[in-house]
């Protein structure tokens, strides 16, 4: 028990010592996860909406696949991405293995189904009414899409928050394609895993606290944008 408390105490010392290595690791984690969430949003939101509001053959089967991909284990995504990016793999000539780019690719593959799935779900439930309303008011395609995004704002934000949360906290994919290389591809989660392996608990706890704080802060901001405002508007 004393052991754990010592860990927390040393953790605070470490955070406030402003170690440049810690900054670099945190910065890289944010960069990788924010980038992949952004790309996943650009791909996943329009696709999710389109799939949600239209009825097409095989919609049920595709939605089942989509929901399955939402909970795909990150480590397997890392494994398969590595197979493609390795020197001996089909994309080997781009030398992407053990780079932040590879990590962004892997996390984008991880997060896109999540965002797409949640948006698809919301669009399926509420989208049709919005489209019909838009049509009766004489809106064209672009207007309808804009209207949809505005009306589904809450669902889209939840999708983003979920996607980013998944990205920033996963360790399997970034470990395999990034390699946890000091100064190049070390992120918060791989740092924690490595130090835990080495029995260095206080730095692990320190980084864990930082990770949770950032996660809380970022999610609070995203939440404020959508759902939070709506509740305040109601007063």
């Amino acid at each position, binding site marked *: 028990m004393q052991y754990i408390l010592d860990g927390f105490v040393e953790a605070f010392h470490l955070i406030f010592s402003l170690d440049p290595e810690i900054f670099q690791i945190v910065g890289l984690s944010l960069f990788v996860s924010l980038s992949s969430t952004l790309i996943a949003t650009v791909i996943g939101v329009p696709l999710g909406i389109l799939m949600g509001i239209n009825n097409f053959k095989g919609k049920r089967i595709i939605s089942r696949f989509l929901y399955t991909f939402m909970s795909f284990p990150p480590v397997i995504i890392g494994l398969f991405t590595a197979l493609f990016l390795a*020197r001996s793999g089909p994309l080997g000539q781009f030398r992407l293995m053990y780079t932040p780019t590879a990590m962004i690719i892997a996390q984008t593959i991880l997060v896109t189904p999540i965002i797409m799935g949640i948006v698809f779900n919301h669009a399926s439930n509420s989208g049709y009414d919005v489209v019909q309303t838009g049509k009766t008011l004489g809106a064209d395609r672009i207007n309808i899409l804009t209207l949809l995004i505005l009306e589904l704002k809450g669902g889209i934000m939840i999708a983003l928050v979920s996607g980013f949360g998944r990205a920033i906290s996963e360790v399997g994919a970034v470990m395999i394609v990034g390699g946890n290389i000091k100064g190049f591809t070390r992120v918060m989660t791989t740092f924690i895993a490595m130090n835990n392996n080495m029995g260095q608990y206080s730095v692990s706890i320190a980084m864990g606290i930082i990770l949770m704080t950032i996660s809380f802060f970022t999610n609070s901001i995203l939440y404020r944008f959508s759902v939070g405002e709506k509740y305040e508007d109601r007063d």
Partner: protein
Amino acid sequence: MKKKWSVLVIMLFVGAVALSAAACTPAEKKLEAGSNGEIILATTTSTQDSGLLDYILPNFESQTGIAVKVVAVGTGKAIEMGKNGEADVLLVHARAQEDQFVADGYATERFDVMYNDFVVLGPKDDPAKVKTTAGNDAVKAFTAIAAVPSTFVSRDDASGTNTKELAIWKAASITPEGDWYVRTGSGMGDTLTVTNEKLGYTLADRATYSNMKDTMTGLEIVCEGGKLLLNPYGVIAVSPTINDQINADGAQAFVDWILSEDTQKLISSYKINGVQQFTPSAAKK
């Protein structure tokens, strides 16, 4: 009023993203230091955990301008990476596998670099009485442990340490199996943590143990110094014929550097808590 708040928050957010991107530039600076390219060095987790590479590699990078990407995996995976040409140079400690690697044509030659040793660790109360019966003989130690049988924690991951552990069991003519034989499938640090929790016995490289000694409060060295416990390291430049992305020049530069007299001296100067960890063993030219 609310709108202004939102704008402020957006700016804070963008600022955070910009800051995070800016914080990434140290990595880019390091890459710039790799102005003469980079090499991927596949090594073992125990080598990385010992802290030796953090100590000696800056010397290589400043001398040659070649950035070293150290990928620390188990010996098995390091060798596989060499066979697939995913790494440019290997630094491992599994002689049998290294020789096989060269014999199979994946490299021209392997070189001795340094050695350290393994130690047998056990709980302070030593239920298998290894300290009194085994001396510095690892085979006797393992035999005593299996006789009880006391908990023995194995890495079980085809690593250099695991290879040595299995060699000792073989020399003792014992096939370890049963509830007392715990397989972690993990790196040295993790395995030591498990051993400490279970208060069992295990085989560890001295450097990792030295680094973790403060947290391994339940364990101590019960057997050390015997010939079978020596742990020699080899450096191998992967053959450039495997694929055209191997940085053969960089790999050769690394091999030359690590075998050079200055670097050998540097290796011997690496200490943990005042204790030298590695003994250089490159052939004198």
